[in-house]
């Protein structure tokens, strides 16, 4: 709603909308950052201690499709 307001009015929200938006965007950013940190931490843990679902230890590297399975 705030984004639509911003797009159509081409100005920043004011009043209650501005206060609500300030809270909402902080929550969105916090959730995104926490999700990113948890996901990367989980990947790092898995690359050391666990295999991926396909048994490959390096998915995401440029040669992942040719990567052999961990013994």
């Amino acid at each position, binding site marked *: 709603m705030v984004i639509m307001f911003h797009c159509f009015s081409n100005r920043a929200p004011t009043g209650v909308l501005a206060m609500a938006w300030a809270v909402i965007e902080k929550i969105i950013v916090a959730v995104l950052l926490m999700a*990113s940190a948890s996901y990367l931490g989980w990947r790092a843990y898995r690359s050391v201690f666990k295999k991926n679902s396909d048994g490959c230890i390096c998915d995401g590297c*440029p040669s992942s499709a040719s990567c052999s399975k961990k013994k």
Partner: protein
Amino acid sequence: MNRVITIALAGNPNTGKTTIFNSMTGSHQKVGNYAGVTVEKREGRRKYKGYDFHIHDLPGVYSLTAYSMDEVVARDFIINEKPDVVIDVLDSTNIERNLYLCLQFQELNVPIVAALNLNDEAVSRGIQIDEKRLSEILRMPVIKTIGKNGAGVEALLDKAVEVFERKEKPDYEVSYGHELEGDIQVVIASLEKDGAFCARYPVRWCAVKLIEKDARAEELLESHAFADGVKAALKERVRRIEEHFGRDASTVVSEQRYGYIHGATAEAVTRRPVDKQTVTEKIDRVLMDRVLGFPLFLLILWLVFQTTFTLGAYPMGWIEMFFGGLSSVATAFIPEGILRSLVVDGVIAGVGGVSSFIPLIVLLFMFISILEDSGYMSRAAFIMDKFLHIFGLHGQSFLPMIVGVGCSVPAVMAARTLKNARDRIITVMVTPFMSCGAKLPVYVLLAGAFFPRYAGTVVLSMYVVGTLLALFSSLLFRKTVLRGESTPFVMELPPYRLPTVKGILWHVREKTFGYLKKAGLVLLPASMLIWAVTSFPKPALDVPKDVQMAQSYAGKIGKEMAPVLAPIGFDWKIGIAAITGFAAKEMVVSTMGVLYRVEAGPDRKSDSLREALRRDPAFSPLVAYVLMLFMLIVVPCFASLSVIYAEIGWRWLLFAVTYWTALAWLLCFIVFQTGRLLGF
């Protein structure tokens, strides 16, 4: 319900096993026109005529004598997993050498179907194989195949079903001649005293291997109930063989096998004399020339890089424009605040910075796959072989180094083909000096920004410096911590083959998807985190962005590192970017995207990252080159480290990490300080 048939796809290196595996299973495993592409077994499935085929692609090996890890993998699979059928892929152009392994499979008494692959090449060289006659002599089905177009693959599956359904014990008869057969029978008789042992292992194979003094067979013998009796009989027989033939018993066994093969091929193979030079010989006369070979190799590499840069510049510009547009759209849609900053300065700047290099990755790997599939890479290894020998490595170490141009992870694993543990450790420690595909965006960004006219040459220099460092490091290790001579190795030179469009497209698709996957799964969340550490804590007063960033967490960490970074010419931002490369090398680019976009401000949103770097006073062509050197030498990414740990253990890993870090800093210090003194 379908019946399951387990197939082991085995054979010598570079006979086209993986091509047949791909044809059978419809998968897209990497194939290459050089030996040792597969270092571990892979599994694929296929439903065919009411059967479920579980197909295992084993590493290519020359024999089943457990010298190297790939031979152990292949041999243990056949002995322990007991596949229903072994499909032995034979190179029809070199049938004698390939049958040597086939005979060893026969000794294991496993059901075999032989695939006479590369039959088209054999015909063009005047080699005609009578597969029916060969099948009668060797007492196993023989099918002609051409892996690259799938010819004969279904016939192979049909024959595998037939062998599986027959349920009969194979009836092979590998003859070692009257003299040796008597000795083998004596050893067999002593082994047969333990019924449980005979049920577990093929007795004839054990007897022959024991006469060959095979270490693994000797280990197996320890589990025999009457091991001492067998050892006594064996000792007596080996002594007799060596006295009678005047040679080592293992040599005698090997000669007898070749004698049997010679007899079989004399009956089933005819060779029409081909008086004209083959295409391979004609090309090799130029490319393998003693004087011209090495300069031509360098020229080919230079052309690859220069063409990649010239052609790749156009689509790179389009992608930069796209992300510039995306940035403007996001700015228009999202109200000013931290969310807009996260999306524009974190996500779009970080991921966009890396994504613009996709065309270069596609082009470079397209050229590399053409060189690999054509057979030139094996020649490159041969040309490098004499240099490698001087530095205590041999040509076989060059294969992992070639693979390292793609990614260090499979490259480190490819070092398993080395038989000597010392050679393997050295190769693993020097392979990361080969610039992997992930380092390429860093080179391209910096070379494009600071050496626009000579970008291709500058990037090529990184590959040359990397190779030289690998050579000097191996010499250093060989003279100090890993003393010893390199083991002899004969380089295999496959014939030149015209790369197929399908094969090249597979390679390119694999690299591109891998790169995109990494951009989405690693670089996107990482860019958000980097944005956070460069944006927080927020200053109380409204200060310029560069001041705010210097006061951020990243700025504080960077300033702590300043005493170490300043002597090599890095300011805190370059230092932070370099450190993030530990997670993944492309991260350096996405981190710079975040750091420099944050600083550039909203009025410069459409500028490329290269322009932003050029404007930074901390950067100069000298600093850019030193940063490239640092990225080349310093510790490889996290994924590579975990594989290196698995391959050589934590002690050597710790040694390697210390060595890489110290060498990176020292070399960068020398180059930067010398460059500064010379006025660069």
